């Protein structure tokens, strides 16, 4: 049956068709739609399965992994930086293995479209010595998902599926199984203490030896089942192209564009590789070009004087794949002398950037505005974290961004290093649960003085509004958590009257001055795009500008920066009625001359 699917939907359908009935993950672009699609399929087809967001990737991985130890078929989903968080568990899981099947889906983002780093999860798989599959298209993603789960069960080791953004967010007409009788495996834990609880040195040493054997078996398997059939189709010639994942599609098209015929071998499993077998094939060619992204994973394994790629700078070093890089590589290798097929003729003038901004009406904006009003920039350090609220950077309200949860530990570090300044850290609710709690405990017991503002909008907004823990179960409460950690904790329910928000932070400053450890302020907000809550929270106070009062002081367009506000041809601020959501926040405090007034025409 043919279906138009996005890569992530194809992976989700593949999981269901592989009888996976435990999926646990943490949101992160470009991976998030995998788990939400499994949840959709669960509803549509009334499937009995577990598909839930974990508090972070390590937790997600471990839940799924235990399921696979107990004999089930499971999956963990995350983005590539999430794998850093789950890596501790992964490194040991590869030694111990599993009885059911476990697919670890780690989505990469070459080109930094929505990620802090351009790291390559395949390299991580190689580091952990687990097999990894690299799909080129949504069709591959569907096929390799099913294949990977089987492989994991057969070899008793977690298998990684590594789609890149251009697979996750690609759309294609995919051939899928039309009927599937969902039959998950029964979970039945079998006690085997030496295996499931192997301890160093003897226990783990033995598992280490077994792991090496498994890798060798997988190399042979890779050759027999995946690579040999590909090489059997090859004709030999001046150049062999070894292509991983999306590299395959780019290479095929680029060669056709250049009018070059060459063998292109698709490497579906870039680790572990049967290196000797592959190198034997090089005899039929003058040169070998490896096309893969974003790091040289295949290339490092098959290093040879004939091999070119990223290591010797024949291919590009950073940013996502593009056919022009293959054209240039072929030129460097003396295999293409034609004209540039991909000339770039950009518009002659610089086009203003369109940086993302907090939505009109987003409560995060008011909080940042108030923090800056009370804790002056010159006397403060503003560490922040990762989420929609990072866009407070447009207001000048953020000094540092590192990784999820980093704001809290960095607040400790800044408090120690520069004690004369106020340290005001901001973190979202999902980020707090993900990585903010251990550093808060650290700060409490060591008495580090800072203000931690938890921006609790009860959604994981940045990644598409998944549900955080407290949304599904009210028992989980950030105030109680922070109090439980021993921090002096305060709560403020967002009010669109900015005077109240500023007053709250004035109070927080008094508390800060008195405190001898961290002060936590939990701000209860909502997200404008959260349909369930926004309609009742947005008051319908649409705003317009009293032009006579506007003195063009820039306050509203810099420190507040709500998208509908811009200068008109008379150099007065104007509010775009299409963009304004009527939150009414700018009616107070924001304008020093009170030029913002209620738009009587739109009423309340």
């Amino acid at each position, binding site marked *: 049956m043919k279906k138009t699917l996005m890569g992530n939907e194809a992976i989700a359908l593949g999981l269901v068709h592989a009888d996976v009935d435990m999926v646990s993950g943490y949101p992160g672009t470009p991976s998030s739609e995998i788990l939400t699609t499994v949840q959709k399929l669960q509803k549509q087809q009334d499937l009995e399965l577990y598909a839930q967001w974990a508090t972070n990737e390590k937790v997600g991985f471990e839940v799924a992994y235990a399921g696979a130890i107990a004999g089930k078929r499971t999956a963990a989903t995350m983005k590539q930086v999430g794998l850093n968080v789950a890596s501790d568990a992964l490194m040991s899981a590869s030694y111990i293995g599993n009885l059911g099947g476990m697919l670890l889906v780690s989505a990469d983002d070459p080109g930094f479209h929505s990620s802090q780093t351009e790291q390559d999860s395949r390299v991580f798989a190689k580091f952990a010595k687990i097999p990894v599959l690299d799909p080129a*298209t949504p069709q591959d993603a569907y096929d390799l998902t099913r294949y990977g789960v089987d492989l994991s069960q057969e070899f008793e080791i977690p298998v990684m599926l590594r789609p890149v953004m251009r697979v996750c967010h690609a759309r294609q007409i995919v051939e899928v199984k039309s009927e599937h009788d969902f039959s998950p495996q029964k979970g039945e834990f079998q006690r085997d203490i030496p295996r499931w609880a192997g301890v160093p040195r003897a226990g783990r040493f033995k598992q280490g030896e077994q792991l090496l054997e498994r890798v060798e078996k997988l190399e042979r398997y890779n050759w027999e089942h995946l690579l040999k059939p590909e090489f059997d189709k090859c004709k030999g010639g001046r150049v062999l192209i070894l292509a991983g994942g*999306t590299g395959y*599609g780019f290479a095929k098209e680029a060669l056709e564009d250049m009018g070059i015929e060459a063998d292109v071998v698709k490497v579906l499993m870039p680790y572990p590789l049967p290196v000797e077998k592959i190198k034997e094939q090089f005899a039929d060619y003058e040169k070998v070009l490896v096309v893969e992204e974003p790091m040289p994973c295949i290339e490092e394994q098959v290093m040879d004087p004939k091999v070119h790629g990223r290591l010797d700078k024949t291919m590009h070093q950073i940013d996502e794949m593009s056919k022009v890089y293959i054209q240039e590589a072929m030129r460097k290798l003396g295999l293409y002398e034609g004209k540039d097929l991909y000339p770039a003729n950009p518009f002659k003038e610089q086009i203003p950037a369109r940086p993302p901004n907090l939505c009109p009406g987003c409560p995060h904006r008011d909080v940042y505005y108030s923090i800056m009003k009370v804790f002056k920039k010159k006397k403060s350090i503003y560490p922040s974290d990762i989420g929609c609220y990072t866009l407070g950077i447009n207001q000048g309200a953020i000094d540092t961004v590192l990784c999820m949860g980093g704001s809290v530990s960095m607040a400790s570090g800044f408090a120690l290093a520069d004690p004369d300044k106020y340290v005001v850290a901001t973190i979202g609710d999902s980020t707090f649960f993900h990585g903010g709690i251990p550093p808060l405990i650290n700060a409490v017991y060591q008495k580090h003085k800072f203000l931690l503002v938890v921006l609790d909008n009860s959604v994981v907004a940045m990644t598409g509004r998944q549900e955080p823990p407290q949304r599904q179960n009210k028992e989980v409460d950030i105030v109680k958590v922070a109090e439980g950690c021993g921090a002096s904790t305060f709560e403020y329910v967002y009010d669109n009257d900015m005077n109240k928000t500023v007053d709250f932070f004035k109070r927080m400053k008094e508390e800060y001055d008195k405190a001898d450890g961290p002060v936590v302020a939990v701000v209860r907000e909502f997200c404008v795009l959260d349909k369930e809550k926004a309609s009742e929270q947005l008051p319908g106070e649409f705003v317009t500008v009293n032009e006579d009062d506007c003195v063009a002081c820039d306050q509203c367009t810099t420190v507040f920066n709500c998208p509908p506000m811009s200068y008109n041809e008379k150099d007065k601020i104007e509010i775009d009625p299409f963009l304004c959501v009527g939150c009414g926040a700018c009616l107070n405090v924001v304008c020093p001359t009170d030029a913002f007034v209620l738009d009587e025409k739109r009423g309340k």
Partner: protein
Amino acid sequence: MRYQVVIAGFGGQGAVFLVKVLALCAGNKNIECLGTENHGMSQRGGAVSCFIKLGDFSNPVIDTYQADLLIGLEADEALRNMQYLKSGGIMAVNAEDDFPAADVYTDVARVDAFAKAKAGDFPIQGLNVYMLGVAARNDKNFPFTLEDLKEAITQMNAKVAAQNIEILEKGYANVME
């Protein structure tokens, strides 16, 4: 057949919707299709660009100087993505009359769709579909008919199809010389 389309705009303009419509049209005609959308920051008003490649292709990304058609939902975003157009391609753009069409190296079909929406010709949320109509009418190589597009829009969501089809037809009525 091979035909490549870039759709450029900013978050909230519904570029991805157009990708889905074109993918459905392709499916209905048994034409292969590969597309990709970059929607990382789109919801927060950032720039969005989508690619859709119809016919026998093996990767979803469009390289510079390859696209047959660029649908620009906004003037700056159209210019930012201009380099994807091949010579002989066409840009269908929503822009005011000061748009520097002379500096674009392909044909340009320009309509001030923001003004039309403000004047009440169609609801602003329908701007994507309106521009699809403009593109379909003015690109002589456009691979689908008006009927094909209507069919796909109905498949997307039968309930709201009538309104979208009306907007599509309004866009389609714009003939450039």
